[in-house]
């Protein structure tokens, strides 16, 4: 009987339904589908509490994924007021550090991140956790959020390390990155504080997002469409003469500074994996496009 009810629901396309809390708790699962952003996931968490759902049987899913047979899908429309309420609760009850960790975890590329964050907030609010929320690593979901936030934090730190600027015509500093996680918004404040009087652009070619900073002004992010992406490609080709000189000096410096008797290329690769070397001037080979 349950099966026919569900199929008819799917056929009519109606997503609102009465709660099934009376029946067979084990089989029924409510899946909240939200969009892939911090506001989306936090709105889904708010809705889970607003609609008084059973937290053990609710899952938060990012975007469209494999459909389950015996599950109820509910669409969650992103609402910044609701997301703001959840954010305020997290900051007040669990502290700024936990809020930062959750934001970092949501910048990762993991399909299960929404569910992990949701269950972490549930565990925190229910009072089962003593001390710091992110310290309760015996809980699987808290540990997943911790691992994701650590992954994103490390990726952002590596971007700060290995990003290289190139001076193009007009005195603009241009950098390209291809990170595993969405870290453009995490590294822009660092560089904006470091170079307040420079014009610079950091382009994330994997996600078509770019961070722009004009001298003396605040930074902002833009989403790149095809034309902007092509404009940036052409901008990168027009570097200044001084740029070639400096790149050559630095390449020579890196080469001179290593001690031959202590050569250890495996150790170097452990610290600097090959995938980050694509846009670094000192590792560009003779006929590489990066070699100026």
């Amino acid at each position, binding site marked *: 009987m349950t099966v026919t009810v569900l199929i008819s629901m799917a056929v009519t396309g109606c997503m609102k339904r009465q709660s099934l809390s009376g029946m067979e708790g084990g089989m029924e699962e409510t899946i909240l589908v939200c969009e892939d952003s911090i506001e989306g996931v936090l709105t889904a968490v708010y809705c889970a509490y607003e609609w008084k759902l059973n937290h053990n049987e609710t899952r938060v899913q990012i975007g469209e994924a494999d459909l389950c047979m015996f599950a109820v899908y509910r669409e969650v429309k992103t609402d910044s007021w609701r997301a703001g309420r959840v954010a305020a609760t997290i900051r007040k009850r669990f502290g700024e550090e936990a809020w930062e960790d959750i934001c970092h975890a949501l910048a990762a590329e993991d399909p299960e991140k929404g569910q992990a964050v949701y269950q972490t907030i549930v565990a925190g609010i229910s009072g089962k956790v003593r001390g710091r929320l992110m310290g309760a690593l*015996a809980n699987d979901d808290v540990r997943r959020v911790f691992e994701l936030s650590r992954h994103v934090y490390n990726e952002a730190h590596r971007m700060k390390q290995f990003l290289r600027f190139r001076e193009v015509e007009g005195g603009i500093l241009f950098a390209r990155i291809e990170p595993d996680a969405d870290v453009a918004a995490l590294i822009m404040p660092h560089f904006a504080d470091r170079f*307040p009087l420079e014009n610079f652009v950091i382009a994330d070619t994997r996600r078509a997002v770019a961070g722009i900073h004009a001298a003396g002004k605040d930074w902002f992010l833009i989403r790149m469409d095809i034309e902007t992406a092509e404009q940036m490609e052409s901008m990168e080709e027009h570097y200044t003469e001084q740029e070639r000189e400096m*790149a050559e000096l630095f390449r020579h410096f890196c080469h001179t500074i290593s001690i031959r*008797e202590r*050569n250890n290329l495996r150790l*170097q690769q452990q610290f600097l994996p090959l995938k980050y070397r694509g846009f670094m001037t000192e590792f560009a080979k003779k006929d590489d496009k990066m070699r100026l």
Partner: protein
Amino acid sequence: MSLQIATEMSLMEKLEILSDAAKYDVACTSSGSERKGDGKGIGNTIKAGICHSFAGDGRCISLLKILFTNECAYDCKYCLNRCSNDVPRATFTPDEVCRLTIEFYRRNYIEGLFLSSGILYNPTYTMGLIYQTVYKLRHEYHFQGYVHIKAIPGADPEVIRLAGFEVDRMSINLELPTAEGLSRLAPNKHRKTILAPMRQIQNGITVNKDELALYRYAPQFVPAGQSTQMIIGATPENDYQILSVAESLYQKFALKRVFYSAFVHVNEDKALPALPGGPPLLREHRLYQADWLMRFYGFEANELLSEERPDFNILLDPKADWALRHLEEFPVEINRASYERLLRVPGIGVKSAQRIVQARRSSMLDFGHLKKIGVVLKRALYFITCNGRMMYPVRLDEDYITRQMLDCKERLPFDADGVTYRQLSLFDDRNFVMDQNQMIQKVV
């Protein structure tokens, strides 16, 4: 006969000579100082430091490490730039140094500047040149990134004091662990002239902390502390002596770091050892391990080594070595032991110990949790219990545990010296059965 006229060297040539000369100074961190930009200049510093690149020998490149000049009046036997060597000499101008620093910094190649120097005319004159350069960098070029300079032993204390207000870290190389070694290999340098500026900087930092407590925006004196460096393997001191020197430096001079540099053979000299196996890299590695144990794990030098055992174990790191000699301290109960006792377990580091202490507040931990938290169970399982039970039944016997730990192929770095064989035993073969009939029955 054709004349060779010395022409003005290009920036590229100068950089090559002077960075090649500076590379044996292993201090390379850009950490210890946190400073935001003020909006009117260029640069900031991060407390954890940022390593922008890695050289072919695995060391990090985070600063523009150069000598101001490699002309030197001294004749230290281990140094490539000693006055009796015939190498090309070069000198930067302060403007060239500043320009290089700023241009590299803009492109995110470096975190800042590391400036050392050979002795030009006399120590005070050289220190004056270094001071002039960093002053220009800070006040004309408005550079607010990381600056690390070397104080020249024997320079006038007033110049050192003035320079301390412009830099993040100032260091002086101890060069050799004992005064006898120093007088043998570096006859122009004396222990007193090296320790006096260290004391001056230490006092300056203490006084400055009081000033900062009174007025938050007072000028800072050497905010990232001081460090030093010792050459390992050039003189016959044993590991216990070196470690004791390092310990007393940390305690008496409040140093941030002591660096150990394996002796690399660059000069032919009868006072220097031959070192047929290359630089003593494993020894340097063990010293760094012991250094970390002293700073973060609460060990003392006489716990790790002693007069009877003055050298490190080749096969095991110092922490595991200590644990095997003190089996009466183990097993440690994870859910109840103090933080200090958890730190002493091989396989549990500072981060894992902190996580264990936090996680056990909310629930009891078992071995599955520990593995996911990041404890290296392969090593720790011989020394811990969870809720009273050990992971596998283990005899707390020194030989047995040593063999087990070495068995799981403890990876030694640098193809460590020698041991490629192991005493064989019939019991190594897992398929060895007591009763041959059992074997036949299984097959049939």
